[in-house]
């Protein structure tokens, strides 16, 4: 891990100026201790945000910079879409931001094909974010890991198991539910349908739009097995033909699940 290029932000209090600079601590944690052709594995990147500070989600809202990650891998290893944990909705002085505080665990799944050569594979993630506390500063960091290549996949690493709660909470498209989006004048009605297992009892949910726009808190209504909610155009304006984002409720959506965040990606009818 190389040092941060710019790590000068001071976050906790004005007095912190005299203390060590605040930095986001970054660590890459592989799911397995070794990889092999024909397999798949995940790598988590854990971001520890200093107390009193926050960084932005992929869509930071009305302020902040998006947190980004770009992987570099050897031939034979391919990255799939990164899963981002859902953010907090922060409203300060009338500005709505989508932020991470504390620890955020970002997960990317990789596949390995037979063209992978050598006894080990080097992976590197270049990350960037804007760290805001009492002042704001853009920062970058690179994390790298080397995984041995073995014919048989290795057991999950112990450190990975400790991340299980964070990984289970990642927003995901539920295979048990279907989502339908219908345009209604200046809003879009989402219907989440079909599963007898749905147990959502939250009266409200927060929709975080993926690309642009700001998070909105909307009422959730039960209709038989379905739930419906209406998103104002402020939350979907950038993608009028498509609704993409994360819907976070106060309780899990399904029986037996800890997942409070559903990934939504629906064509608007």
């Amino acid at each position, binding site marked *: 891990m190389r040092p941060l290029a*710019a790590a*000068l*932000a*001071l976050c906790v*209090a*004005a007095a912190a*100026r005299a203390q060590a600079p605040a930095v986001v601590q970054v660590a890459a944690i592989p799911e397995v201790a070794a990889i092999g052709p024909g397999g798949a594995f995940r790598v988590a990147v854990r971001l520890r945000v200093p107390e009193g500070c926050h960084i932005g989600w992929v*869509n*930071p*809202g*009305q*302020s*902040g*910079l*998006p947190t*980004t*990650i*770009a*992987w*570099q*891998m050897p*031939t034979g*290893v*391919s*990255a*799939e*879409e*990164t899963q981002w944990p859902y953010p907090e909705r922060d409203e*300060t*002085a*009338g*500005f709505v*931001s989508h932020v991470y505080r504390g620890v955020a665990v970002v997960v*990317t799944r990789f596949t390995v094909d037979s063209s992978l050569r050598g006894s080990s594979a080097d992976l590197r993630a*270049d990350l*960037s974010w*804007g760290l*805001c*506390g*009492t*002042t*704001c*500063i*853009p920062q970058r960091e690179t994390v790298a890991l080397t995984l041995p290549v073995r014919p048989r996949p290795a057991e999950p690493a112990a450190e990975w198991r400790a991340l299980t709660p964070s990984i289970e909470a990642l927003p995901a498209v539920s295979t048990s539910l279907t989502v339908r989006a219908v345009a209604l004048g200046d809003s879009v009605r989402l219907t989440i349908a079909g599963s007898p297992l749905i147990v959502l009892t939250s009266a409200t949910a927060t929709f975080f739009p993926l690309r*642009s*726009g700001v998070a909105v808190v909307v009422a959730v209504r039960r209709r038989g097995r379905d739930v419906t909610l209406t998103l104002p155009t402020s939350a979907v304006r950038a993608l009028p033909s498509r609704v993409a984002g994360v819907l976070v409720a106060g309780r899990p959506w399904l029986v037996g699940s800890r997942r409070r965040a559903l990934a939504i990606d629906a064509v608007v009818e």
Partner: protein
Amino acid sequence: MRAALRVPLVLAAFRVAFASAAVGQQQGALPWRAGDDPPLVAGLALGASRTTIDSALGQPERSRSVGPGVQLLGYGSRGIALLYSEAESLAAVYLIAREAGDIGGMRVGDSGDSVAARWGNPSGVQDGVAVYQVGRWVVLVRLDSTRSRVQLLGLGRAAEESAAEAEGPFDSTANARQDIEAALRESRTDHKLVLLDFGANWCLDCLVLDRLFRDSTVAGFLGANFRVVHIDVGRFDRNLDVSRTYGSPTEGGVPAVVVLSPAGDVVATTRDGSLESARSATGAQILNFLRSWVAAARR
């Protein structure tokens, strides 16, 4: 508009310093205007599908994933590399050999001076690559290690600023030094202080401070005693030279404020962290800061 690729970190792969100093102040001009379609490069248009690419260049000789859904495709024998995104198809074309073709008449191997003479100064330099922005697309130029010859030419989509960066009091197109000079010139007549407000539209505390400046308890005193110049630091890639001129108040982050006398002398600076509580400050507290700066100027 920020001069950056949609996949800006890919540029990190091209780490040779662009000799911006060698370019100097050149009078050349780009052969394109904002709104023009990007030129074909190696016979390909930005946004071309993989089928079109394969038809034009054949199968890539090398392929490397550089991010989720993004691949760098290499055609070494042709001196061409492509950035291909599942979401946007052909996102960038890089020429790495002279025979690969040209962009706007320039080729790999041409002198850096000839680029500057022909195209003028770049919009910016990012990760050692000169970026010429033409509306929603950019031309990239990297020089070799001797900083004399073009080693790489590229054409790519420009990044769109996030909504947070595009809207707000900090104008990415403003010329900060000219704005400061103009403010000082006027202040020599009416003796107002010049308040340099370093910040960025993505910075929450900068937006809050700007809002406080417009608060009814502050605006009157501010307008009567100060001339405010907003200076956009972007993602700390803009106007940092201006910040250095005034003692690098942005070193610890933004917002940062420097107060100048009409003669251009620094009267006060927040480099000491005095504005760090801006987010939770009240108009009255900001007013106290302003009063203290006026008092300091009179001493």
